[in-house]
């Protein structure tokens, strides 16, 4: 068995193990998953909602929903793909309650995303990188919600195009188009940083 096949087999085995644990509603497994996926899920929710308080509420709701509906996870996809899909559905439900039908309802909503500071120490050699990150964060706030979501899932969470299609329920071509357009829309902000 070569390395790639071994890796795929190991991942499939891990996903099956997670699926079995979720069916049992194993609290220890859930504790481990919460710790493992905490940053990725919160980052996704922050970019999706643009609101730290709402993101934190949805973060908790998502894990409760994972507990309740864990038997729906069949282990065929990556757990993270399913987790993001659950979070996305909860977000849409909550925005629907506020009279938005879907993410489309947020297309013109250009609220700034408030990313909480992580309290990392400042260092001279990180200044340029930080400035670039700030510009990109600023750019993200001005993106259409679907583009923002696609970029976050692709480049921050490292999901494949197929996985993004599963999470968002959009066709593969649409996902590609969103990433391409989203990156194009971010380019002017980067130029601002370089000027």
């Amino acid at each position, binding site marked *: 068995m070569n390395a790639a096949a071994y890796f795929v087999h190991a991942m499939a085995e891990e996903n099956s193990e997670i699926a079995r644990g979720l069916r049992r*509603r194993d*609290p220890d497994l*859930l*504790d481990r998953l*919460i*710790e493992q996926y*905490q*940053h990725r*899920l*919160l*980052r996704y929710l*922050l970019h999706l909602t643009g609101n730290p308080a709402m993101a*934190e509420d949805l*973060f*908790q709701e998502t*894990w*409760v929903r994972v*507990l*309740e509906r864990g038997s729906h996870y069949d282990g065929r996809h990556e757990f993270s793909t399913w987790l993001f899909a659950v979070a996305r559905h909860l977000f849409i439900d909550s925005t629907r309650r506020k009279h938005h039908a879907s993410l489309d309802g947020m297309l013109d909503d250009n609220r700034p995303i408030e*990313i*909480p*500071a*992580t309290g*990392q120490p400042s260092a001279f050699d990180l200044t340029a*990188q930080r400035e*670039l*990150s700030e*510009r*990109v*964060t600023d750019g993200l706030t001005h993106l259409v919600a679907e583009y923002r979501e696609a*970029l*976050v899932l692709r*480049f*921050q969470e490292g999901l*494949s*195009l197929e996985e993004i299609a599963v999470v968002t329920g959009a066709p593969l071509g649409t996902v*590609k188009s969103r*990433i*391409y357009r989203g*990156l*194009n829309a*971010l*380019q002017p902000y*980067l*130029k601002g940083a370089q000027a």
Partner: protein
Amino acid sequence: MTGNVHERAQALIALGDAQLVSAADRTWLNRHIEECPACRDYASNTSDVIHALRSLPVAASSALVAATQLRVRLRAQELQRGQERLWLVWISCVLVTSSAGLTTLLAWRSWEWLGQRLQISNLTWQVCFVLIWMAPVLIGSLLLLARGTHLAEHTGTWEG
């Protein structure tokens, strides 16, 4: 045509890691980037954007994680208790159904014996049995129905 070439190159750059672009596409893209300053700039900028996106600092606080874990554990216990209650309800239903079946059978035999002893016709004791055996259920149903109607009327008054 030229515009299409640049668009194709930029689309490949945007989606471009090993799993997305074939070897032939990659060779073509590399050659194009060497020849085209605009696409080279685009590739460089895109790489910077992707790098910046990957390094955006967002971290969940330990308090949030702890609160979530606690909430999930409490909910798990609640679901566990609900599951146990459901089992009890199922077991009770099975026991009640079995006992009702057995009792009905015994009562039927007793009435049959009594009917023969008192020399009552089969039809008479059977009708009496059904009426008496069913009476509590019928009365209970009528009372529940009346109560339901009463509640519906009451709710309607409040809403109105």
